[in-house]
């Protein structure tokens, strides 16, 4: 992998992020309604003087360009995303920080489980096409792939939480519980995690399995697999050393793309299980018209997608020398 290729990918990612930051500025200023009114809400007794005061305090009385734009760019690159309108007294960065970890935990684990199970299942069903596992696995994959998160989540919730009482219905832990030790606390989080995690993993596993299955099927007809067979290698060796590495390539892009959907998926799963992550935050911020927070979520999300794609590009070129151009 040449240094030039790496540099080019990094520069291109940097430019994309810069453009996103600008877009973020423009987009949120095109939103309907005057910001000072959103800030003040429907306060009784608000006088025009109070409105003017708010405009001045938030710098809304200054021209959009250059004043507002310059101060926006400077503070954004200093990591200052302003204050949340609705969560009174908290900065956007604080709000995002507190909500990022629950989402990372849920979707990080969910992705890992889905990747491992999905790829194994896909590889096996592809390799043993027509076997029991292929029929069961492929059928289940298609059903799961087609089921929306909220439906799957609600079904799991009603069955395992409300009816069987095996797991808690909502939240990430039990508020106010005194834990004897760290393991008890982890256990509590774990119990809260089971259902949302199952929803995420089940929702994702289908697409990985389907992709991996067709990818394996493709490689099975390749000449190098025939050659390997002709050389008398065992089936296991052919799968491990020849078919799998080649079949894995398309899944790398799928993982990168999926990272971009973390928040989109998070919204529905987190809302169903009231998981205190970025998804519920986005819904709350939308309902409250908390534009600074939405802007923050948007920025975080787009930067994640850019980095995930950068990582995929670099990994891809490492795995497949053909793309290093």
């Amino acid at each position, binding site marked *: 992998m040449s240094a030039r290729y790496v540099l080019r990918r990094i520069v291109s990612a940097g430019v994309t992020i810069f453009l996103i930051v600008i877009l973020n500025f423009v987009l949120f200023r095109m939103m309907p*309604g*005057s910001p000072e009114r959103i800030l003040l809400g429907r306060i009784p007794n608000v006088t025009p003087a109070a409105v003017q005061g708010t405009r001045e305090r938030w710098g809304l009385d200054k021209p959009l360009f250059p004043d507002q734009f310059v101060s926006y760019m400077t503070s954004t690159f200093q990591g200052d995303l302003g204050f949340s309108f609705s969560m009174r007294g908290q900065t956007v960065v604080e709000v995002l920080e507190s909500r990022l970890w629950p989402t990372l935990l849920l979707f990080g684990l969910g992705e890992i489980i889905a990747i491992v199970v999905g790829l*194994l299942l896909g590889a096996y069903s592809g390799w043993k096409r027509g076997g029991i596992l292929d029929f069961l696995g492929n059928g289940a994959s298609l059903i799961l792939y087609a089921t929306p998160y909220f439906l799957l989540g609600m079904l799991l919730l009603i069955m395992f939480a409300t009816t069987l009482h095996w*797991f808690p219905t909502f939240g990430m832990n039990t508020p106010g519980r005194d834990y004897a030790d760290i393991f008890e606390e982890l256990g509590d989080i774990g119990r809260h995690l089971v259902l949302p995690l199952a929803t995420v993993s089940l929702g994702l596993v289908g697409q990985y399995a389907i992709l991996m299955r067709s990818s394996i099927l493709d490689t099975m007809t390749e000449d190098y697999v025939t050659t390997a067979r002709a050389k008398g290698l065992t089936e296991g060796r052919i799968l491990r050393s020849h078919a799998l590495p080649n079949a894995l390539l398309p899944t790398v892009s799928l993982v990168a793309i999926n990272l971009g959907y973390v928040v989109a998926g998070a919204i529905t799963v987190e*809302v169903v299980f009231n998981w205190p992550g970025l998804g519920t935050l986005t819904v709350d911020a939308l309902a409250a018209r908390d534009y600074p927070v939405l802007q923050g979520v948007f920025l975080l999300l787009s930067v994640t997608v850019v980095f995930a794609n950068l990582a995929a590009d670099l990994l891809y070129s490492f795995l497949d020398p053909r793309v290093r151009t």
Partner: protein
Amino acid sequence: MRNRLGVRLARIIALGALLGAGLIPAGVAQAAGPLILNAGTTQKLETLNPWQSITYADYEVFQVQYELLVSFGPNLEEVPGYADTWSASADKKTHTFHVRDGMKWSDGEPATCDDALYTFQLVLDAVEKLGYLGSGYLDPYLTNTGLESVKCEGSNFIATTKFPTTLLTQAYIPILPKHVWSKYTIDQINDTTVEGYFDNAPPVVGSGPYVAVEWKPNNFIRMQRNPNYWGKAGVPDEIIYHQFADEATMVQALKSGELDYARGVGADLYDSLATEPNIARSEGYANGYSYLSFNTRATHAGYKGSTSALEDPKFRDALMWALNKQELVDKVLNGHGVPGTTIVPPYHVNWHVEPATPRTFDIVEANKRLTDAGYPLVDGKRMDKDGKAITLRLTWSSDGYPKDAQFIQGWWEQLGITVDAFSTEEDTLIDLLYGPETGDTYDADWDTYIWSWGGDPDPMSLLSLFTTDQIEAGVDDCFFSNARYDELFTLQQQATDETARKGYISEMQQLFYDQGCNTPLYYDSELHAYRTDKFTGWTNQPPGTGTPLFGFGYPGYLALTDATLVPTPGPTTVPATAAPGTTAGPTATAPPTTDNTGSSSTPLLIGGAVVLVVVVAGVFLMMRRRGPKAEEE
């Protein structure tokens, strides 16, 4: 290889199952800990600084922690709060509140008159400096009473008002501990964006029965019993308020027993809880209403209404004859509400009056009134006085009311009026509504719209929305301006005799009804649900028209008892009484009979099992049919 991969897969699945199984038993285990009241709401738990309060949830959180000078009892009557006795001078301009002796804050510091003085002075100073404090929702309770000055004489807190008033005992002003709050400037209390803003993070120092000890913004607030609370201790050791993004999840949590109380349940879900064991429902009158508003200054200079007809009370009156409010209640609210008439809702049993000559739904009458008022029907089109066919825009905030709009569109089209119905994003709508009096950039570019208002224990705040001075503030958004109404407002504000005040308030309601600036479509019910197997003693506040929690003050919490200690728990809900002037009012629903044998989720489980069997059978059938083919390959 086939086996090895299969074995590995099987191992992973087994490991997962093992982990899952390890978690399951612990999931059901309930540690014998404090007795917790878990209450759910879909409103946000976003502030512990009372001055920033906006929603019912915000109000609930502060009123449990901080005493008001005079609090609210189970019937919304005045009961001792921070003060144990109170009195007013003969001219009702000097008000004396005796602060209870020996009272302490939750941190052990003495709670004295000084704290009340600090709090009231803070509001007075903020209003003088800024015009409002925080979200601006609490200071009007003092400004509306004409409060001039406050002082302490020993344990007596003395407030002087500019004009006679009886409303100081209703002031929704939480008394704050001076030793905590005086460390912060007005700006640090008022403005959430300044350096050192005081968010009042836990542990909160309060004087109410419970104080916050833990807070995850927009997630939950946990409160513990205040050991220094002056009154009878509440039975729950802790109260946890949980915020829900989705009311369906909230209802599931109530069913599973993780919640004891759910506030703000949607009509469909509310109905679905009717047969649920150990769950009782409470349908309370809303202290507010949803309304249809008219741009009554449509063609005034600087206004952008589409027709001068909107300015004519007779035209608006005719349109209101073509509103079937009962149908809206039945079809839009699933019956959970009461058709609207006057701007003081029936929740205010003592103040609400029905109009002397109510309008009914009568399309023929509406058509006749339009023609009589000089709006002829030409080729099926209703013409205004400028000879233009009338087309009205009807809009609503994007959150709600599309169904209402559809009905109204249908009715008004029978009058020959074309209705252009569309939703508008909330912030755009707020901008649209304001008239030029609110600011140079506003032009009231609308004809009719639907929204809602909510009120206080006293009807004054709902009445205050339509005084002339509220046009400039952007609150009176149908531009109602009536000298008699303004006069009556001042009279009721300063009235010291309840009967006289009732007279003024009745006249205001009738006057507003006749003028038809806006028309309440319905008083939509507050739908709450709660479990009866953990706590009993749920008491609606007020008994006929309210709900157990999320009312005024905190009597609902102190009335609760531990259900496990009561030998034969029975229905405790107070039977409903219809408010005057209404026949089909919301009623408190008594808990269903104790039928614990069946659960509504059982059919679902059976259904799930059936689906599973069908899927498995289908797959095997497919395999059998495809089997030979696979072999041929």
